[in-house]
């Protein structure tokens, strides 16, 4: 029962996390910041705006991106197979990339290109995390992983690699070249407007839920460790976001692939032989 409620209200919880994050980020810069419910005000405003449709496929692919992400989050909450979850999440990214390529805007194409390159950088790490969980717990099932002890000690290097993936997924500095708000004006989301942009906006909230639920898997059955990890990583990510500048796409791929893959492989080889 509580699982169904969590799945139904996942976008709203994500909205609260996003709103809280904007307040935290403002306080870190010694500002007052927007109210906590700001994302929902934005949402109600976007319902009321006039919407332009560039072409039907563009809007439908945007909505598909949102729905697939919701299914991904539902799968995690219900404790399904971790590999399914990761590949379904890749599918949702592919929908967004196709949406970006379906319009003529050059900024949209650049954004899609960058999304693809970013997927190239973080996807191997996500798969290695799944393999790491399999080697520790003997199963890809999230329900089984949640019943075992916390695996953060034996998967610590993979945890560090995952810390590098999180800013890419959440579009945070230094790894936010995929969105790049003033430079390529939001990348793939540039041609969405009105109520159709709202689906992308809510997909961003669901992305928060996805990323933090995956993080909490490192804590296993220890709920307090999970909440501690969530709070600690949340503050750390915002601190890094405020303290660093955006880096180029080329450097993003180099850093994430070289460092992340090395850390992940070391961890997997260590698990296999030690």
């Amino acid at each position, binding site marked *: 029962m509580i699982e169904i409620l969590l799945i139904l209200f996942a976008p709203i919880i994500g909205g609260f996390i996003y709103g809280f994050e904007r307040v935290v980020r403002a306080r870190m810069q010694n500002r007052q910041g*927007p109210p906590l419910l700001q994302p929902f005000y934005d949402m109600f405003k976007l319902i*009321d*705006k*006039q919407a332009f449709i560039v072409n039907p496929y563009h809007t439908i692919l945007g909505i598909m991106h949102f729905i697939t992400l919701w299914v991904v989050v539902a799968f995690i909450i219900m404790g399904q197979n971790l590999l399914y979850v990761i590949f379904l999440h890749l599918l949702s990214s592919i929908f967004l990339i196709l949406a970006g390529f379906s319009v003529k805007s050059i900024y949209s194409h650049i954004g899609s290109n960058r999304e693809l390159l970013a997927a190239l950088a973080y996807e191997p790490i996500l798969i290695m995390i799944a393999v790491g969980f399999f080697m520790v717990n003997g199963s890809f099932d999230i329900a089984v992983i949640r019943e075992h002890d916390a695996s953060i000690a034996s998967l610590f290097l993979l945890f560090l690699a995952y810390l590098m993936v999180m800013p890419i997924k959440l579009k945070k500095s230094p790894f936010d070249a995929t969105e790049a708000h003033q430079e390529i004006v939001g990348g793939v989301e540039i041609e969405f407007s009105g109520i159709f942009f709202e689906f992308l906006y809510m997909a961003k909230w669901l992305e928060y839920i996805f990323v933090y639920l995956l993080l909490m898997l490192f804590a296993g059955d220890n709920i307090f460790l999970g909440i501690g990890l969530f709070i600690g990583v949340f503050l750390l990510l915002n601190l890094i976001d405020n303290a660093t500048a955006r880096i180029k796409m080329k450097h993003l791929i180099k850093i994430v692939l070289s460092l992340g893959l090395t850390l992940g492989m070391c961890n997997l080889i260590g698990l296999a032989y030690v």
Partner: protein
Amino acid sequence: MFDLKKYRKKSPWILHYNAGSCNGCDIEILASLAPKYDLERFGVINTGNPKQSDIFLVTGPVTYRSRERLVELYTQMPEPKVVIAVGSCTCTGGVFRDMYNVEDGIDRYIPVDVYIAGCAVSPELIIDGVVKALEILEKKSKEMEKALKLFKEATSENGVINRRNVALKVGEVHEEN
């Protein structure tokens, strides 16, 4: 069903365009978004994307080359929207008035809702202007304003569309028809 109109003034997203300004007003706009004045506490985001913004902040006296971009950006913004002219140049042309390369203010091309005077405007005045614009935004309807009338037809040579000189002054429309 609750009234959606009241949420318009709680999340205004700003599009900022520099139509040939000296950057004095642009710096003041950035200052009003920065920690000291903190426009974000009203929910303001500087989007930079016309398709998702509500408030069009324009600086500069509209140079000859920036007219088409100005009108293009205005038509790309979905209704309801408001336009704020920031600075003396944007309102009337300021010290550049009657120069050969300058078009004496943005209201020759697009309808303006709020004028903010000053050279350069202070952040307090910008915040005042934005809050005033929000009151107007709440009363606006979703119908299109006469933006498309400001366009001429784009000419095409050898299959290449030429958009130069498509912008039209407000008075010019009635002269032609």
